């Protein structure tokens, strides 16, 4: 005899949803540290929020912050976006190609190549703040680089101490950041099946054919990942250059996030900072979407 019993409602509820308990912390976290701040930020962006006067926190609801960004401060906004984009495009383009070439260079079976990988990577273990202070010291008016230049009978260069030379200096020094992405490329290159190269060699393929027909196509998923992450990170550049700012180079290091930081934490213009961060968010969102839409060239392996 079969007893057909309907389980009580709470049992069924527990069976269907009970295990969500494991995800309660992360859901609370998204709510507290992402969604609520986003709502706050949106409200701030559309009013005058004064941080110091508790009784008149929110006033003048409207578009005035955006008007300031795109009207009164238009020059500054354009300038900030210009230097941020110039930084992002130049460092991502040069950095991805450069670090990929270094990775190819180290992706060989020479004895002892592992030790070289470690050596190349060592500078990436320098803390970011120490790194920027280090370069500041090396590129100082009487720093090592200028003393070398003068020893060679050349003119000293202004590096970070003068507006015009800040961007070339950033580009030049970004080379030492390559090993950071290099190790990610190397990890991906290791996953390319050796048989592919072997059969290509049997067909008489040379180094360049193998690189362009096997290595690069097989690492497109990592290229895609790095591209997305570099765009998101480069447009929010901050920590590496903030400690370098001084009276002479301030405007050339006035990246968007630096302006947001200064507006909010130095001048306490919370509303202005919030509005500016939303502008940046929309720009990053559109760019990421654009990259995703044009990602037909990415190869994710057989089963994916």
């Amino acid at each position: 005899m079969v007893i057909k019993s309907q389980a009580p409602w709470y049992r069924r509820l527990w069976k269907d949803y009970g295990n969500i308990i494991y995800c309660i912390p992360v859901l609370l976290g998204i709510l507290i540290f992402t969604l609520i701040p986003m709502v706050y930020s949106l409200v701030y962006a559309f009013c005058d929020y004064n941080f110091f006067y508790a009784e008149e926190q929110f006033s003048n609801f409207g578009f005035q912050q955006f008007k300031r960004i795109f009207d009164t401060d238009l020059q500054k906004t354009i300038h900030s976006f210009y230097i941020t984009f110039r930084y992002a495009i130049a460092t991502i383009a040069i950095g991805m190609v450069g670090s990929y070439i270094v990775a190819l260079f180290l992706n060989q079976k020479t004895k002892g190549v592992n030790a070289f990988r470690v050596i190349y990577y060592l500078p990436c273990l320098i803390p970011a703040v120490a790194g920027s202070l280090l370069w500041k010291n090396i590129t100082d008016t009487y720093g090592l680089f200028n003393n070398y230049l003068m020893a060679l009978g050349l003119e000293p260069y202004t590096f970070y101490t003068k507006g015009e030379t800040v961007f070339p200096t950033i580009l030049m020094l970004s080379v030492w950041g390559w090993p950071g992405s290099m190790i990610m490329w190397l990890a991906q290159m290791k996953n390319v099946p050796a048989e592919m190269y072997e059969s290509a060699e049997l067909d008489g393929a040379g180094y360049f054919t193998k690189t362009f027909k096997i290595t690069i196509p097989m690492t497109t998923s990592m290229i895609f990942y790095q591209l997305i992450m570099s765009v998101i990170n480069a447009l929010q550049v901050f920590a590496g250059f903030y400690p370098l700012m001084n009276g002479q180079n301030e405007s050339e290091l006035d990246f968007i996030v630096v302006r947001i930081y200064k507006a909010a934490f130095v001048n306490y213009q919370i509303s202005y900072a919030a509005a500016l961060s939303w502008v940046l968010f929309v720009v990053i969102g559109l760019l990421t979407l654009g990259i995703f839409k044009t990602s037909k060239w990415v190869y994710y392996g057989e089963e994916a």
Partner: protein
Amino acid sequence: MNNDIYLSHSNILAKRIAFTVFKYFMLVIVGLFFIFPFLYLYLSSFMTDEQILNTTSIFPKEISFKAYKTLYEHSELVLYVRNTLIVCVLNISGVCLMSSLTAFGLCKVKFKGQDIVFTLILATLLLPGTVTGVPLFTIYAKAGLIGTLFPLWLPIWFGGGATNIFLIRQFMRGIPKSYSEAAIIDGASSIRIYASIVMPLVKPIIIYLAVTNFMGLWNDFQTPLMFVGDNPMKYTLSLALYQEFAREGSTYFPNVQMALGVLMAIPCIVLFAIFQKQLMEGVAAVGIKG
């Protein structure tokens, strides 16, 4: 005829040797180039005050320990180390415990709406931190947490971080179903399965994440700058390096900054040396072994 073969043979050999020599030569030259900032950091921390301000060489003219002595005599340095360690320990334990629990909930048990939760977690990865930074500051300020260490470790205890969750989930999916099914038949609860079957198996990825998270946290500058700001009692090392030793108006010489940089880099170098293979070959090298 014989002679010909011999000639071409030695030719090939000579070519091979020349190529190998050239390869190592290039590896060394490029290596010297890349290691240069690291060497400078280390060597300049031993320079005298006069030399560091106008140095013509990467090598110290005379070895001076003054920078390290200055740091040793700095009364607050121990406090900065302690603060940084507190932040790291609380964060790493949060990462290990919470992200593995969340990943377990996402792939080893079932509930309705699981996919939505996972998508939501992934979506937060693409959100620029800048948007939430400003309102979080005001929220922390209202809660009286600005200038304390809470904002630096509290959020991680809510879920353990999206990237970490994602990576552990990828790893957990590789554990065969039969492992946990046997336990279910024996009547084990899901939390038992998590603790005694899944956790031991995902140890390699947990260690990998603990190491990579530590390296990021130990050197983080932006978060402490935003939320700790200028409360010297709660400086972490990175923040102290900027606020105390480098900011305009600071009386310390660059050699002291470099010396602190050298000391700060030590834990990361040690960890890198120990976990070199995993860190170099990425998550893929963290094979599933019980």
